[in-house]
């Protein structure tokens, strides 16, 4: 059995997928993880890079919502909010994101209107309602019900 110590040169020829176990950096002679689920997690971490791990649209959406909310909380600029990278990635999720955006709008009204408009190509908000978050949210939720997207 070979142990790999983070930050320490390792002879990778000794490591195979079956035998590899990360070592405890404090005690290099001991394995860092002992439980089978931890071993599985460790193997996934080392053999399945993040770029190859599958994440559901809903999980990705929740992650991006958190990033966007944290990154735009002190901003007044609606332009900066809509051009924030996380917001743009949510738009990039496409139509799969629409029911998620509508649920989020119902749960906690926020500035999701541009994303909905960008994805769906429609805008149920009347000009007189611009900037009025609750009314805009209501307009979008009404549209969703009319489209059969409501619960």
């Amino acid at each position: 059995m070979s142990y790999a110590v983070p930050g320490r040169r390792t002879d990778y020829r000794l490591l195979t997928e079956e035998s590899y176990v990360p070592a405890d950096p404090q005690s290099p002679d001991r394995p860092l993880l002992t439980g089978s689920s931890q071993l599985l997690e460790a193997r996934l971490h080392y053999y399945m890079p993040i770029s190859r791990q599958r994440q559901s649209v809903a999980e990705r959406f929740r992650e991006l919502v958190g990033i966007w909310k944290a990154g735009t909380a002190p901003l007044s600029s609606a332009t900066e909010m809509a051009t924030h990278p996380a917001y743009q990635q949510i738009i990039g999720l496409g139509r799969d994101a629409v029911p998620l955006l509508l649920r989020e709008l119902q749960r906690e009204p926020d500035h999701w209107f541009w994303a909905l408009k960008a994805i769906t190509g429609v805008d149920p908000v009347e000009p007189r309602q611009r900037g009025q978050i609750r009314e805009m949210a209501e307009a979008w939720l009404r549209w969703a019900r009319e489209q059969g997207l409501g619960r």
Partner: protein
Amino acid sequence: MREEIERIFPGLKTDVYSITSPRTPSYNCVAWAVGQVETWWWPDPMEQAFWPSEIPRRETIDVFIQAFGTLGYVLCATAVVEPGFEKIAIYVTSATKPTHVARQLPNGTWTSKLGKLEDIEHATLDGLNGSPYGSVALFMRRPIQQQTS
């Protein structure tokens, strides 16, 4: 709440300030500066926020001066309290893009809605200097009797 605000605006750590509202995405600093709490004002080209219809939707200092002009504000030289007038301070980035507006209170302190975060009352304008707001570029004033609320 204070920890988050001071992490974003470290200048407030050495300023005297208090939180005066819950956080909400319903209105922003521009709305709060003109006494509104139901509307998000901004000249976004996507036309999602409210902006006076006769004023261009561009993030420039001239556009903000025009917008506040529709509400009776004119440029003034300083932040010194002038009886009978209320003043606002407009913050801009180093690229002169408007980012924030604070409103002066009768006692000379300032009130700000921090994006989607809370309203605060702050003793000085300097507490909000730095990222993400930049610094104060100009002051405007209008007679107090024209106040909308």
